[in-house]
């Protein structure tokens, strides 16, 4: 573990709640509203953490463990990403499988916490969440395989670090496709338009929001913070592919990363402003489409 890398993870954890704020602000500006302040989520988290908890009598320890597991898995996953563009705080051969496994563990915990309430609303959200994830996970692996082919490295530090910068001149077209595919995954995994609409008012049309319908107080704070962190992690993947920063010094590379994250958040806001939510049955097609892009990226490098 490197000290500088840990500092990077610390900063990422600190600024993550600003990302949903940037998305909301972008949407507000584009639709001619003033909108909530960019740092609104920090205030919400502070408020929720001071509150007490209300639990349904139906729930068990599974409900309370859900948010904790989600947060821990994302925090550990953050340790696997090379934030300075060179080396992650923790790396080992094949850690991309660990990254996917951690996301899956978090999802399993969240879905079970939702089902623990016994409400049809949560059941509905949970069912949609696992359906979408079933198509998102193979696409993530296709992206990873394209990166493995481009860099010849089996760890995230290599795939997204120094070897990636060297691969750009050779495999630029392929890597752009991977980046686009990862951006679609970011939208799907973080319940953004066109997959899910975080601003919707009807529980029946929600996915992520409806799973956590019964969470309140500190539990909801953990969930909201984890969502922001997950958005940041996928943002790091996208930025790492598009902007290899191996040539920069540590602080400059980190600064570039966070600027890139801001751009990604704005891009998400723009997508949300100009697109409508897809019909649920179309979402697998969107993800299979993103997977096809990643497959092309793979084939480009084989040929």
């Amino acid at each position: 573990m490197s000290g500088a890398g840990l500092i990077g993870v610390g900063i990422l954890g600190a600024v993550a709640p600003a990302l949903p704020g940037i998305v909301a602000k972008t949407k507000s500006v584009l639709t001619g509203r003033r909108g909530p302040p960019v740092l609104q989520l920090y205030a919400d988290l502070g408020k929720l953490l001071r509150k007490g908890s209300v639990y349904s009598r139906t729930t068990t320890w599974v409900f309370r463990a859900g948010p904790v597991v989600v947060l821990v898995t994302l925090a550990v996953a953050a340790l696997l990403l090379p934030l300075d563009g060179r080396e992650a705080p923790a790396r080992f051969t094949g850690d991309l499988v660990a990254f996917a496994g951690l996301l899956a563990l978090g999802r399993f915990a969240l879905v079970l916490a939702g089902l623990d309430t016994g409400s049809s609303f949560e059941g509905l959200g949970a069912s949609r969440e696992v359906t979408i994830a079933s198509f998102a996970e193979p696409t993530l692996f296709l992206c990873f395989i394209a990166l493995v082919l481009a860099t010849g490295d089996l760890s995230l530090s290599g795939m997204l670090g120094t070897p990636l910068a060297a691969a750009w001149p050779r495999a630029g077209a392929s890597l752009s496709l991977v980046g686009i595919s990862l951006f679609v995954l970011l939208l799907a995994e973080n319940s953004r338009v066109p997959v899910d609409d975080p601003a919707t008012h009807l529980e029946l049309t929600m996915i992520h929001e409806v799973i956590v319908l019964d969470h309140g107080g500190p539990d909801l704070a953990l969930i909201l913070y984890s969502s922001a962190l997950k958005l940041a992690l996928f943002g790091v993947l996208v930025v790492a592919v598009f902007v290899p920063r191996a040539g920069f010094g540590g602080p400059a590379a980190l600064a570039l990363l966070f600027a890139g994250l801001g751009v990604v958040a704005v891009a998400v806001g723009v997508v949300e402003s100009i697109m409508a939510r897809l019909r649920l049955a179309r979402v697998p097609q969107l993800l299979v489409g993103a997977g096809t892009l990643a497959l092309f990226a793979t084939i480009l490098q084989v040929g």
Partner: protein
Amino acid sequence: MTLVALGLALIVLAGLTAAALARRPAVGEMVFRILFGAGCTLGALPALAVLAGDTVPDVGLASATPFGPWVFGLDALSAVFLLAVLSVGAACAFYGLAYLAHERAHRAVGLAHLLLAVLVATLALVVVARAALPFLIAWEGMAVAAYLLVVFEHERREVRRAGGIYVVATHVGTLLLFALFAIWAGGGSDLSFAALAAHPPFSAGRGAMILVVALIAFGLKAGAVPFHFWLPEAHAAAPAHVSALMSGVVIKMGIYGLLRTIVLFGTPPPWWGWVLLALGAVSGILGVVWALAQHDLKRLLAFHSVENIGIILLGVGAGALGVTYGHPLIAVLGFAGAALHTLNHALFKSLLFLGAGSVIHATGTREIDRLGGLAPRMPWTAVTFLVGSAAIVGLPPLNGFVSEWVVYQSLLRGASAGGAVQLVGLAAVVLAFIGALALACFAKVVGVLYLGTPRHALATEPREATRAMIRPVVGLAAACVVVGLAPIAVVPAALRIGSLVAALPLQADVAAGPATAFTVGLALSLLVAWALYVAFGRGRQRRETVTWACGYPAVTPRMAYTASSFAAPLLGVFRSFSGVRTRRTPDAFSTHAIDPVLDSVLLPAWRGARAAAAWVRRVQRGGLSRYLLLVGAAVVASLLYLLVAGRNP
């Protein structure tokens, strides 16, 4: 080997005591427990030693035996299967004592214990046999013992049907094994494995025939699609501890057979590896899709065995391709992942089946849509089932994650290798798909079964299983956790097996498993975070109320989300081959699933064959005049044929 022989003798003796002392079950079962446990421990010791790197000399029967010497041996490949047989066998046997206790009055329970002991002993013999004839004898003994156990509740019609399908399927497999050894030996009289391995190079055709026959024979036992049709029937019909043993261990004999075939055959041609990989992908995806469609708890778990056999076959296929194309790393990692996943699946699948047994025991139903909210009522069963579910889905830090990791490593190294073998990389995507679908399915099972509210009123309030039933399940769960937390303890042994099957040297510097620091670190972080969370919540205001239903006050259990509803979006995507039949009424939605292979192909074919036979039988009425007429007609027909044939030579 002496220890293994002694252990097996003790296991059979334990069974005999249980059967002989059936009148005095307390004494009989106590003796059974002691002897069976001692036998499994004795047998497991040499297996562990071999996995740690020891070698054990083969032993042969002293007297003259038909078809070459009858040799028995224990190498790393046999050892891992022997370990699975004995550990899962012991857990299932102990569970069975408690599970069948209430049947003592009206069934031959002692006989069932004897059959289970025989099944475990023959399973162990299958993996240590080093000659065709003892292998076949053990194989057949295993099939018959398993059949008799499947039809334990023979007064139920569907149990007899399942037993019938099973016995036909397994005997087709045995017949093919006879053919396999006959083609392999090619008229030679020495059928010991050493002689078979020393075969002169096969012609391409004969080699292909051997590999195809091996694939079907062992595929039938393993339950790979499309040979899986007997599996969900038999596993659903058997008593829970028998299902656990069958799903956990018996079907793995098919995998053992395939791996042993590769050891004896040498380098397989490329197409065989690709066929294995394709079978693995198809079994994996269809297995989990069909599982999603099931609402019968045991059938669902049985289809997950098909899925996991698919994952194992992905490893075996990648391994075979690695051997063929000369990539030692892909080969060793593929076989190692397959072997390790075999052991891990034995642990968590038997755990899940035993847990399912406890649920069925407590509630009297296997329909998951009728259940719900069992977690507070059966806490131990719920926690262990949750561990097993997370393990089978391949979540860190549990054992399924470790073995899927090794398979992933093999597939990903295939992707980054050059040449045709690169296509193997796509199997990693298939594996990711299987994993995500399995997560959906087990979220459904755990969520509907244990969480939420009961969906129907049951005759009696479900109660936690007895201690005797919980103990073996907790043991299996502990094994899942230990293997998951300490990959460093098991992965080297798996690599040793991989290099044995691939006949390639072991590369010491390969980082094959997930870093132990990662798995332990994750577990510790989870524990610390939970402790912090509890500490944070202490002394804070906390209220209890009903679940928020968006302002709707009159919530009833009938509104709870069902398994049918939960799986509906995914099954909609797989509509064309999920075998789901939907039923909608104005106030209810339900689905049930058929098995596309069994119900749409095999049974219609069987009925067609029977109808054809009945039509032919119409000539056999027993009247002399009719027979004379037929004889006359046959003579005239032959004469006509000769005339025609004579004119046009």
